[in-house]
């Protein structure tokens, strides 16, 4: 398990230059650039498409936090994403909660689910960890399928009202909603960035690279792993809850195992263990699905080919390759 993250992270020289001033400046400039793109995007592109990208980018960021910095490959992240999206949609529609409360509640459910599943799963490593998360996520899927009263079964929860932000500002207009989503995304990104560069993040990386050593230094590895797991599940929940409000729909797709596979693909394409990689990966995959929608089953084939090529030739991902070229962690 450890080599998976370290081949990529260490391979791109991540550990070496973290305190480097020029790197900090580069990252700050990147954040400014991202903010600028976020401001311009809804005027250039179709806002719903941009919001979709943002939700998935946040989801991939959350997933990458666990894999790239916790060294844990989860094959069941759809569970937190999907369940949060159900809760957010349900409370907004049936309890009439305002969108921000619905999203918060969905996120909280993602966190609780992450705590329970995480406590079960982190006791095992590597492939077993991947399989347990997959099995737990499948249970969430079957739960969702069999509680149509709550989830609407295969119809999903449809016609979720976008409502009024804080009860004041109507989000019915795509642009209005966009600013909320952009703010959530940016907040999530900053949070992840802070966590990675905090002492907590450093310990997590130490555990990822050499668990026995970290334990011998007196760190309770499992507690750290669990915290990363919960944080990752919470942010995945935030992404799912937001997506439900954007598309006014929560459906079984969001809890199905292929969704877990998709987020792995996004992260892999963008660059495992890089800060900005998952964003690029999400843009590439979502755009691809959009452009290839008319091709039917070929979408699956193309996705499969990308998976294979990434694993064989391109393990650092897009951002990983760039980071290597400019010799700075991204």
């Amino acid at each position, binding site marked *: 398990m450890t080599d998976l993250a370290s081949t990529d992270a260490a391979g791109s020289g991540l550990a070496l230059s973290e305190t480097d001033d020029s790197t900090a400046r580069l990252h700050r400039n990147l954040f400014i650039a991202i903010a600028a793109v976020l401001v311009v995007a809804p005027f250039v592109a*179709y806002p*719903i*498409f941009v919001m*979709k990208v943002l939700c998935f980018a946040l989801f991939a960021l959350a997933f990458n936090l666990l894999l790239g910095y916790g060294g844990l490959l989860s094959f069941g992240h759809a569970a937190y994403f999907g369940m949060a999206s159900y809760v957010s949609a349900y409370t907004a529609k049936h309890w009439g909660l305002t969108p921000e409360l619905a999203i918060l509640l969905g996120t909280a459910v993602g966190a609780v689910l992450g705590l329970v599943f995480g406590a079960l799963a982190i006791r095992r490593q590597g492939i077993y960890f991947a399989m347990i998360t997959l099995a737990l996520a499948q249970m969430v899927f079957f739960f969702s*399928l*069999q509680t*149509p009263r709550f989830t*609407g*079964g*295969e*119809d*999903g929860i*449809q*016609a979720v009202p976008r409502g009024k932000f804080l009860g004041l500002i109507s989000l019915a207009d*795509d642009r209005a909603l966009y600013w909320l989503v952009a703010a959530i995304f940016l907040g999530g990104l900053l949070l992840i960035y802070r966590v990675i560069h905090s002492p907590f993040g450093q310990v997590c990386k130490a555990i990822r690279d050499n668990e026995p050593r970290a334990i011998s230094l007196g760190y309770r590895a499992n507690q750290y792993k669990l915290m990363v797991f919960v944080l990752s599940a919470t942010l995945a929940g935030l992404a799912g809850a937001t997506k439900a409000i954007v*598309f*006014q*729909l929560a*459906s*079984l*797709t*969001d809890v199905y195992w292929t969704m877990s596979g998709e987020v792995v693909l996004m992260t892999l394409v963008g660059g495992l263990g890089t800060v900005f990689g998952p964003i690029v990966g999400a843009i590439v995959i979502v755009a691809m699905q*959009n*452009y290839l*929608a*008319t*091709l*039917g*089953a070929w*979408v*699956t084939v193309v996705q499969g080919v990308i998976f294979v090529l990434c694993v064989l030739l391109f393990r650092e991902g897009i951002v990983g390759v760039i980071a290597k070229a400019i010799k700075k962690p991204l």
Partner: protein
Amino acid sequence: MQLKTILATTALATLMAAPALAQQITVKAGVLNDRSGLYADLAGEGSVIAARMAVEDFKAAEKGIKVEIVSADHQNKPDVGSTITRQWYDQDGVDLILDVPTSSVALAVSQITKEKNKVHINSGAGTSDLSGKACSPNTIHWTYDTYALAQGTGGAMVKAGGDSWFFMTADYAFGHALERDASATVTKNGGKVVGAVRTPFPGTDFSSFLLQAQASKAKVIGLANAGSDTTNAIKQAGEFGIVAGGQKLAGLLVFLTDVHSLGLQAAQGLVLTESFYWDRDDGTRAWSERFAKLNGGKKPTMVQAGVYSGLLHYLKAVEATKSKDSATVMAKMKEMPTEDPLFGKGSIRPNGRKMHDMYLYEVKKPSESKGPWDYYKQVSVLPAEQAFQPLAETGCSLVK
């Protein structure tokens, strides 16, 4: 959507190149269905072909209506379907969406269509809610619905002596709806439901449930499922000698393509209800012949036929009103009687339910069939008024 942009630009270019036709109306129709999954064969590219045939037969160009057809795959997922629908309406200037099999996706599309005030003519989906409690002034439900299927198959089987039923129900909302509609019909006709089992969805092995059905001693086993669930259940019922043992199978949602994939050996004797069969009369045969040529030899399903018929009627309404304003066209469509070689004469009710006769078919024995696609023999005709839910019972808010 790159392809579509190119299409759109060419359309624009043609428009500009022909200033003489400045008066012409351009209609953009989107065929949204399953192009890769379970329902790709019964809808899929075939529905797009049917839509193109409607444009051709209507001679749209001569009548000053320019029709452009786009298509996309909703993968049977409501989220994918609603994303495409929004994009089509917001970005690509689509005026109406056709087909949309899979009830969950259809409900989502219908709802967005209402919100954006466009037109949705549904052919592929089954749920009777589309013209019932989820009805919309912008949606027409064209080809069939679960109520009509239950009326046809359930009613006929009870009358033929199959008065005790055991349901094998796929454990999801659509399966439950099929079971609900069918058991109501069975009870109404004097039959009785002796049991039901919920099968995990989607399933591959039904042998265990078939044994339970066998043990129930019910005369009829109602299959409240769809797609590969149905075909697997039928196949395995043959294997376990269910039909040979005297119990009958009733498929509540079976399409021509399902029978094709089962083969007559496994499907023979199955009773089912459809609103269209290619070999019904000269009109359907001639049309189906042309269709099959374009569709790699595969005959049309009722869903594909419904796409043709629905688009044809829409175009007639556009021609008559010289407008593509949704409210105007919808009003005209509901006012005008419908007529085409595939479904004959019919009408559209205020709740958006297209009315036409339904037909009860029995699947032929291999010895009776003349070859591929010669699968059904007609048992009886169910007049539209009996087949579809009485207007007052639909629970549709558009009905006063």
